[in-house]
Structure formats: C-alpha cells, structure tokens
C-alpha cells in the first residue's frame, strides 16, 4: 500500500505531469464557466457576506 502511494505521489510530482494536471484543471473550470454562462457578459448574484 505504502509502495503504491509513494509511486503515485512521485508520479504526480513529475514536472510535466503536474503542469498537465494544472492546465487541465484550469481548462475544466473555463469549460464549466462556458457551459453555464456561454459567451454573454453575465452579472452573477451578489455575495451573501456583502450584506453584512
């Protein structure tokens, strides 16, 4: 178990793996925004804590 965890950690710490994952994470968020809001300049609702 420990061996596989170590291997997995080492794999995700590889520079190219790390940056690929990071870029995918950013793209996933941008894609999510695009799917929800499209290309229109949207005004979201305000923040709950702005009221306090």
């Amino acid at each position: 178990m420990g061996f596989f965890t170590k291997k997995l950690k080492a794999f995700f710490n590889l520079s190219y793996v790390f940056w690929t994952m990071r870029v995918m994470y950013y793209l996933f968020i941008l894609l999510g925004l695009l799917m929800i809001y499209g290309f229109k300049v949207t005004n979201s609702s305000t923040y709950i804590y702005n009221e306090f």
Partner: protein
Amino acid sequence: MIPYSSFSFFMILAVLLIPIIVLGYKEKRSMVYNSFVHFVILLLAFISEVNQFVSFIVYIFWQVILVNWYVSYRKEKNESGVFYAVTFLSIVPLFITKLLPVFEIKNAVGFLGISYLTFKTVQMIIDIRDGALKTLTLKEQLAFLLFSPTISSGPIDRFKRFKKDIDTIPTKEEYRLLLYQGINKIFLGFLYKFIIAYMIDDRIIETPFIQGDTPLATFIYMYAYSLYLFFDFAGYSAFAIGASYIMGVKTPENFNMPFMSRNIKDFWNRWHMSLSSWFRDYVYMRFVFFMAKKKWIKNRHVISYIGYFLLFLLMGIWHGMELHYIAYGLYHAALMISFDYFERMNKQFNFWKKNKVTDVVSIIITFHVICFGFLIFSGRLF
C-alpha cells in the same frame, strides 16, 4: 458594480493588474499606480450608488480624524475613558447601519464594506491603546483602509502584517510564486462561486420542492444552504486573496476545510478565520484579561463562558439585529460552552478516547451540528 460579481469586473481587474505584474517581475512597485488601481476599483464599487459613495467618503474622513487624533493623544496620555469613547465613536456608523433596518428606516449611512472597514479601524485603535502601534501616518492608514481587493467583505487583515508586505518589495522569484498562487486562487474562486455555488443554488435551493414547506425540504435545504454559503463566501475570499497576492500583499486566509472540523472550537479556527480571530483577540481575550484583572469573578471557567457568550452574541448582532442572527450567535455560544465542559470532563474521565474512529465520528457529528447552525442563520426557521 460589486467587486468579483461579474465577468466585466474581472476583465477590468485583469487589465488594471497587467502593469503591476510587469513591475513585480522587475522587482519594482509603483505606489502611484497602485493607488490609481484602488481608486478605479473603489469608483466601480460605489459609482452606481451615489448615496453609498458619499457615505463612504464621509466615513473615511470620520475614521481618519478619530484615529489620527487618538495617535497624537496616546503620545501624551492613556485614559481608559478616552479609549472607550474613541472606540465607541468609531463603531457608531456601523451601529446605526445595523439599527436602522430594525425601525424600517432607509439606511443612508451604510455602504458596501462598512463592517470590514470598522473592524480594521477598531483594530488600529486597540493596537494604539496597547502601545503595539506607536506611529501611524495618514498614508499608511489610508493604504490599509482603502486596500481595494478586500474592501467589500474582507478578509480582515492586521495592520502590522499588512504594513510589512507594503514596505517589502518581493524578489522576482517571490513575486513569481505570489502571481502563481494568486492566479490559482482566482481560478478556485471561479470554481467555487460561479460553478459550484451557482449549481447548488440553481439546481437545489431554488427548486419548487426545496422552496416548499415540508420537513424533508427543510432538511435538504439545511445541507444545501450550508454548502452554498461556504462556496459563495470561500469563492469571494479566494478572489480577494488572489487579487491581493498579485498586488504583492499576502492577505490572510478565511477558510481551511471547515467541514472537516473535529469539534466546534476546531470549526471556528477554520471558518471565516479572519473574523473569528478578530473577535477572539479583540473581544474574548480582552474581556477575559479585564475580568481577571478586576477579580470580579474568581472562577476562570465562568469568565471564559461569559467571554464566549459575549463574543458570539456580538458576532450574531454584527450579522444583523434580526432574531435568527442573534439565535445563531447564541447557538454557537451554547455549543462552545458545552464543548468546553465536555473537554474538561473528558480530560478527567477519558470517556471519549482519541483514535481514528472517534475522529471520523467527531467530524460527522460536528458537520451536522454546524449545518443546523446555518439553518438557523438562513432565517428559514423563524
């Protein structure tokens, strides 16, 4: 235009930050340009509401005069009465803002971010009183108060920590890391606020079934609202902290996985951290020291429990004078006092042993207890 609430705001922010990023990479900082950025963001925040803009300007003048007068006074004298009077005068605008809605009077005093500016000002006054802050220039005070990334809802920074960041220009490597972390936080903010919080609100909270009046609807609403509140506020905080980092200021975090808390004390070290630490340092600790010094009450546990009661009652009232906010504060005071008692008994009898199983059970129990608190907070119960 409310900060971080629309994509057009982010576009303007991105354009404004470009020169700061270029200068950051050259190990430089232009106070003139930074001031211009703050001015533009503040203008965007208040331009649509003239009343708010006027209130904001008057408020800033009021606090600047108060704090500067107290700095010069403190060099000569240190009367407790004067300290209490200055603190009271500093809180007056916020107090009026919270009180007016109770009498259904139009609030012409309040503006976006008044609470957070008041926390910062009171903090400065207390630090001056304690001698922790001996000198304060007008430029430093304005830089701290008008730091635009955190103007609307914090996080509440500490003056000394903020000043250290403002006085230090990061090296190229340090700035590269700040920029990287800042961008990461802004993306995290988009994920939290514009995707997760939006989905919870749109797909769960706003559905006709959850808006209905059945016990099951209220039960589901309790968890959905708790998650929505977290992702909404943690999203805002991530934007504010991210923009601060890009401007070279390491604004403190507001959240640290609060739903993984093992108990209620742990929760308050993880939820809205900048506010809870402010209340802990400037309300609870001061009250405990004051009572210990005066020796009116001998039992330190009783002093601590009154301190918790005071802290959470004030925190509840700060959210608003409505019954559900006060009940929310008292609920957490009761939880803190009960947990403190439980902890003391457990030290004596060791009936709740610490191991992996009890850790998981503690997290589950705390999560449900917290969610019930947010249900009270939401105002759905009463």
